[in-house]
């Protein structure tokens, strides 16, 4: 058996917080990090600095070391849970919690006859339930808890911490057995037992006490905790054993030998050295810890706790997840699940989210996912509509960590961008160079899904589609291999990536040639849309007649009872000259009576700026999409009837044309080059919207795949007229014959 039940050996320090001079404690914590300790914790002392405050401060002044905070029986567990999750989010997952009886188990009558001790243990047990309940943010129901000690009446859950915060139960070993209630609490509900012998005069006695406390010998408490874990349906290897140790003098070899005996006897995997003496901290780190690490062996196979495993889904072999992906993978029982399960518009409950950090890992993820008999979805920014990017019970490959943005060639304005970057990040990264890349109309959208299909953004009429700026890509294919594609190398694949890319693999990096950009005019106009048809027709005519430095979009919502129907026009003029901006906007503003407006001159990056919120979509979006060459009187009237019918609650038309139409229809897989307009409708019902939209089809000339959720095979022909579709199917047969990448606007290898 390995020394610590498979857990790697860790070393920590237990510091006193200091009363009026807490800065000294901060300095010791920083020293501990510098010396390579894994963990810092502070004791709670009367009139000492509040340990949680101190730990939060230390969190901001350190970067790597983990931070263990105490939760005593008097703490409010709901507030403590939220505070711990907050610090864990601020530190990207460095928090651990120690549940402590604050010495109550030290009192007489530890055999459980003393009601007070049992009471404290009971309180802590309920606190664990409340803490885990608050962290379970993926449950949509509020937390109600009716305990003897704690009562919650429908508290909001969340936030989920950044990682699975381990909970240690602190117990003081002494002659005689550990308090049986504490032992059961640790075994049934926590992640480990932390032995905290008071540091007596004789350090060896302390070690003996700790060793006695955890000895796995038959009948000893170590065996008891194993048995208690098994009784609670857990693998004893889930539980860590931690111990506080006292400093000692004498030769380092003796210290090493004694601690090694302790580690082996107690199955310990974490030792916390209780001292404030920098000399001792240094001596232990330099002379003792390395020898213990070397001697304790390297065999490690950590077991996920039952609190995680119990949420696993059928059909996924979780233990077979490649080692490189396991540390960042998120499964339903993990803390970070609430943040990755759903997307911007769609609720999901995948069984496993893989988060590769390199193209090689993305390849491993694909190879692994193919062996699992469940759905596979690929996610870049999580705004996908046709690219679904979540599922129920399947696997998601989340590319958010592949988000690098780098300049390759300043003179040529050549940049390389990862699929997981968001367009707001791209805009912010390019702005200092005086550059911009037209993407979509919203900065929260991810690069991967947009740059493989089109990209109808704020400079589309002036600079074309996003894919028109693409010069090369690197992909991971369905067999996990990596290829490069550009106009020379794998040119046909490069053609297909620009309009149907999600079907052939995962693009792990995009090389773009970007444009120069200064400040722009950004306008938001509110117009009376009562005469919807006239508005569409006039706005459409104004856009077709406009110089290419103007791009705009028009949204018509659903009429609210008793209020006039309004239209919202957003427009960007690529100019910082007020007169030019106003001149460009006037014809657009004249499309209907103007109710309100705002015009700002601001950097493009500010138009694209959005906060990095968490996606929590629910349900399933119902949309239809189309491209149209002109907003003819007939189309405008039909669209007005659609809006009036109530079958769409969000109807948007974006201007395209201009530079996007300069590119030949067969130059890329995006064939709809003649279109001056791109339309999308979101509806409350699939059947209702389809029936209404199908009646409009004769007005359209193609569709933009990113906004389409209709799964009928005819849509494929709308988006990809021949010979485009034939070429795409040939590519599909060559690169993804088994249709691994199908949870998108899917080009099937053959005609269905």
């Amino acid at each position: 058996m390995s020394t610590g039940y498979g857990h790697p050996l860790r070393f920590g320090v237990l510091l006193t917080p200091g009363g009026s001079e807490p800065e000294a404690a901060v300095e010791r914590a920083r020293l501990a990090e510098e010396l390579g300790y894994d963990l810092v914790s502070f004791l709670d002392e009367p009139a000492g600095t509040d340990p949680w405050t101190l730990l939060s401060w230390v969190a901001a002044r350190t970067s790597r070391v983990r931070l263990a905070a105490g939760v005593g029986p008097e703490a409010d567990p709901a507030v403590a849970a939220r505070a711990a999750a907050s610090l864990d989010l601020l530190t990207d997952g460095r928090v651990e919690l120690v549940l402590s009886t604050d010495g109550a188990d030290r009192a007489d009558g530890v055999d459980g006859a003393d009601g007070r001790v049992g009471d404290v243990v009971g309180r802590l047990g309920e606190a664990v339930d409340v803490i885990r309940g608050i962290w379970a943010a993926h449950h949509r129901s509020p937390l109600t808890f009716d305990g003897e000690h704690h009562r919650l009446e429908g508290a909001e859950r969340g936030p989920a911490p950044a990682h699975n915060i381990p909970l240690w139960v602190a117990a003081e070993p002494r002659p005689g057995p550990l308090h049986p209630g504490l032992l059961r609490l640790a075994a049934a509900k926590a992640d480990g037992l932390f032995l905290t012998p008071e540091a007596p005069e004789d350090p060896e006695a302390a070690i003996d006490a700790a060793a006695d406390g955890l000895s796995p010998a038959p009948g000893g408490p170590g065996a008891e905790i194993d048995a208690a874990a098994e009784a609670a349906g857990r693998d004893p290897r889930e539980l860590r054993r931690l111990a506080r140790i006292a400093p000692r003098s004498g030769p380092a070899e003796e210290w090493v030998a004694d601690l090694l005996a302790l580690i082996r006897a107690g199955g310990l995997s974490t030792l916390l050295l209780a001292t404030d003496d920098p000399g001792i901290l240094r001596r232990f780190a330099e002379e003792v810890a390395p020898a213990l690490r070397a001697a304790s062996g390297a065999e490690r196979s950590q077991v996920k706790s039952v609190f995680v495993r119990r949420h696993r889904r059928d059909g996924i072999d979780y233990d077979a997840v490649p080692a490189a992906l396991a540390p960042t993978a998120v499964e339903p029982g993990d803390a970070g699940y609430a943040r990755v399960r759903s997307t911007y518009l769609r609720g999901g409950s995948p069984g496993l989210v893989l988060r590769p950090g390199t193209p090689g890992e993305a390849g491993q993820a694909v190879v692994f996912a193919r062996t699992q008999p469940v759905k596979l979805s690929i996610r870049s920014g999580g705004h996908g509509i046709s690219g679904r990017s979540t599922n129920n019970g399947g696997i998601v490959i989340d590319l958010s960590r592949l988000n690098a943005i780098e300049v390759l060639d300043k003179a040529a304005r050549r940049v390389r961008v990862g699929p997981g970057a968001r367009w707001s990040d791209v805009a912010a990264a390019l702005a200092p160079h005086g550059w911009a890349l037209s993407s979509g109309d919203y900065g929260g959208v991810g690069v991967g899904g947009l740059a493989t299909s089109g990209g109808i953004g704020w400079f589309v009429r002036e600079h074309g589609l996003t894919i028109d700026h693409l010069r090369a890509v690197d992909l991971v294919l369905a067999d996990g291999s990596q290829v490069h594609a550009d106009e020379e190398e794998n040119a046909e694949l490069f053609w297909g990536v620009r309009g149907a890319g999600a079907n052939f693999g995962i693009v792990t990096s995009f090389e773009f040639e970007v444009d120069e950009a200064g400040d722009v005019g950004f306008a938001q106009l509110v117009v009376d849309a009562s005469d919807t048809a006239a508005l569409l027709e006039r706005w459409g005519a104004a856009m077709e007649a406009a110089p290419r430095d103007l791009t705009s979009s028009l949204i018509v919502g659903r009429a609210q009872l008793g209020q006039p129907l309004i239209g919202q026009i957003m427009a960007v003029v690529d100019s910082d000259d007020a007169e030019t901006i106003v001149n460009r906007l006037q014809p657009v503003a004249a499309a209907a009576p103007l109710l309100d407006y705002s015009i700002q001159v601001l950097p493009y990056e500010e138009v694209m700026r959005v906060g990095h919120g968490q996606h929590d979509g629910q349900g399933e979006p119902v949309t239809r999409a189309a491209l149209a060459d002109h907003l003819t009187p007939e189309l405008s009237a039909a669209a007005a009837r659609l809006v009036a019918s109530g079958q769409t609650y969000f109807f948007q038309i974006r201007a395209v044309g201009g530079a996007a139409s300069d590119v030949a229809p067969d130059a890329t897989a995006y064939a709809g080059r003649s279109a001056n307009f791109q339309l999308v409708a979101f509806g409350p019902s699939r059947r209702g919207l389809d029936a209404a939209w199908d009646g409009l089809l004769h007005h359209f000339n193609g569709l933009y795949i990113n906004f389409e959720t209709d799964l009928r095979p005819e849509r494929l022909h709308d988006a990809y007229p021949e010979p485009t579709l034939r070429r795409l199917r040939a590519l599909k047969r060559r690169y993804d014959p088994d249709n691994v990448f199908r949870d998108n606007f899917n080009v099937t290898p053959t005609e269905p």
Partner: protein
Amino acid sequence: MPDYGHDLKFGSFITPGNASPQEVVALAQESEAAGLDLVTFQDHPYQSAFLDTWTLLSYVAAKTERVHLSGNVINLPLRPPAVLARAAAGLDLLSGGRFELGLGAGGFWDAIAAMGGRRLSPGQAVDALSEAIDIIRGLWDADNRSLFRVDGTYYRVDGAKRGPAPAHDIGIWLGAYKPRMLRLIGAKADGWLPSLPYMKSLDELAAANATIDAAATEAGRDPSAVRRLINIGGRLGGPRSDRLLTGPPEQWAEQLAALTLEYGFSGYIVMADDPGTIRAFGQEVAPRVRELVAQERGGVPGNAR
């Protein structure tokens, strides 16, 4: 009267959202860089979309150097006063005297009860806050060797060890609107911190000031012992308008100077989560207000206590 003659403080009120914690920290650092004196966060521990305010204050204090920090305002019902006092003193010591204690009696009792907190009537909550202030000040009084006991209706302290003492005289600022709370401010607090959007009119501000002043006088305090701060919102930028705080920095400065000279306010906390507003408030509004107020006071700025 008013114009109590205090030096002017300008601050930010940043939403402590937990979706992207480092953006919140960055806005606090942006506030410091913009020359603001104060960064504040609301405290609603029952709100799952927010970071825990105490944790955030501690973390941000360690990530800034000069700016002062406060809850706006700390939710007393879910933060026991004895723990709060010690935590506040600790944070003040760690930050070199940069912590201020904005404190509130609590208001959303359903949410507080949902978290396992105690439900109080508004009147009880004022009494509880009064007891809490006594406990907090008693624990900060580290030089006092006497055993500390408070046998209150809502909070009890039974012989706790006092200390640590904070690094500076932490201001206790109460968020308050109703007469009982206002009288408590006059009697015991160092500041009043309402939100302008909650006030029906400027007359209401004047009336509240008068209530505070009368209570202070009754308690044997100088009304100027109570600083008046206020959370403000509006639109900073764009054309001038006849509305309060809707216009360019010059208009804001004129209106805030009037609030100082005519209504006695000396702390302005802008409710904004965008760096542009924070920068403009710190760099364009604050210096102009100071200038205008100094001119009117006819002396050098910052002549107060």
